[in-house]
């Protein structure tokens, strides 16, 4: 019984370390898009994620406040432009998040395979 408990803790415990800022689906989308490009403006990011202006804006504020996203506001002629890019910290956090999720998925697969064999 104690052994079983220890096994399940092994699988579930790493989930406690998961970065909750990135784990939220909308923010995960934003981080993923910004991870694969060097930089993008607000309009491009909105099109790629399918989020509304307000939603995207509030998630970007959150990501900026934890230092994952760098926001540069400038003017092109008379039009305002918001350029966004992942900070070094944001890039590292996203890589760690992906690694943890991948490890968790592997452990879950192993556990499920073990269950079906029994």
């Amino acid at each position, binding site marked *: 019984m104690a052994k079983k408990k220890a096994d399940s803790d092994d699988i579930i415990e790493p989930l406690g370390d998961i970065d909750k800022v990135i*784990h939220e*689906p909308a923010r*995960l989308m934003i981080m*993923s*898009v910004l*991870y*694969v*490009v*060097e*930089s*993008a*403006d*607000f*309009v*491009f*990011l*909105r*099109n*790629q994620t399918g989020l509304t*202006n307000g939603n995207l804006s509030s998630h970007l504020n959150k990501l900026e406040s934890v230092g994952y996203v760098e926001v540069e506001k400038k003017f092109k002629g008379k039009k305002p*432009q918001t*350029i966004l890019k992942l900070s070094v910290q944001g890039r590292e956090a996203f890589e760690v*998040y*992906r690694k943890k*999720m*991948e490890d968790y*998925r592997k452990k879950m697969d192993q556990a499920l395979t073990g269950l079906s064999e029994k």
Partner: protein
Amino acid sequence: MAENVDLKSLERKAYRSIFEDGLWDLFIGLIILSLGLSTFLSSILNWSDLWISIIPTLILNINALLIFILGKKFITIPRLGIVKFGPKRKSKQQKLKLFLFAFFILNIVLLILPFTNLINSIRFEPLFIALILGLGAITLPFVVVAYFLDFTRLYIYAFLAGLGFFLSEVLYPFVGSPLDTLLPFGITGGVIVVIGLYHFISFLKKYNLSK
């Protein structure tokens, strides 16, 4: 699982969105169309001087370029947004620039070659020349550009444009000038322009400014 994002396909999807506006298709289609139309215009206007006959091609090509540049600036960017891609894409673009430069030099050499005595003694079949020019001067560079740009529709256009060049030679004994160039290039260019317009309209519907 939302966490299991395939980053490669996400990057490709983001990158390929820059071709959704159909402006590349319109540009290429209009250039090919100009090849057929300029011969036709020169013929009906009786412009025998080579330099004057170039004028319609030049005007049409400048129009194509203007549509492309102004379309990107005033239609695509406000709707699609601005993006800079990573080092891999940048390196591919550098390679493309190098290839285009080498191809430009090669074309200069090929243009000068007939004026020298180097190839005067060699006789080629006109159909063979058309096939080599169609494949080598049009299809091959288009295919290379399609590869470096990751623009899949360009592979089809490469084949169509090369075929048009070859067909113009095949059709000449049957329909004479200017139909020999008007038909293949007009049809090929026209088809590409229609595809471009279809993508352009779909783009305008998908990316609404009122968002």
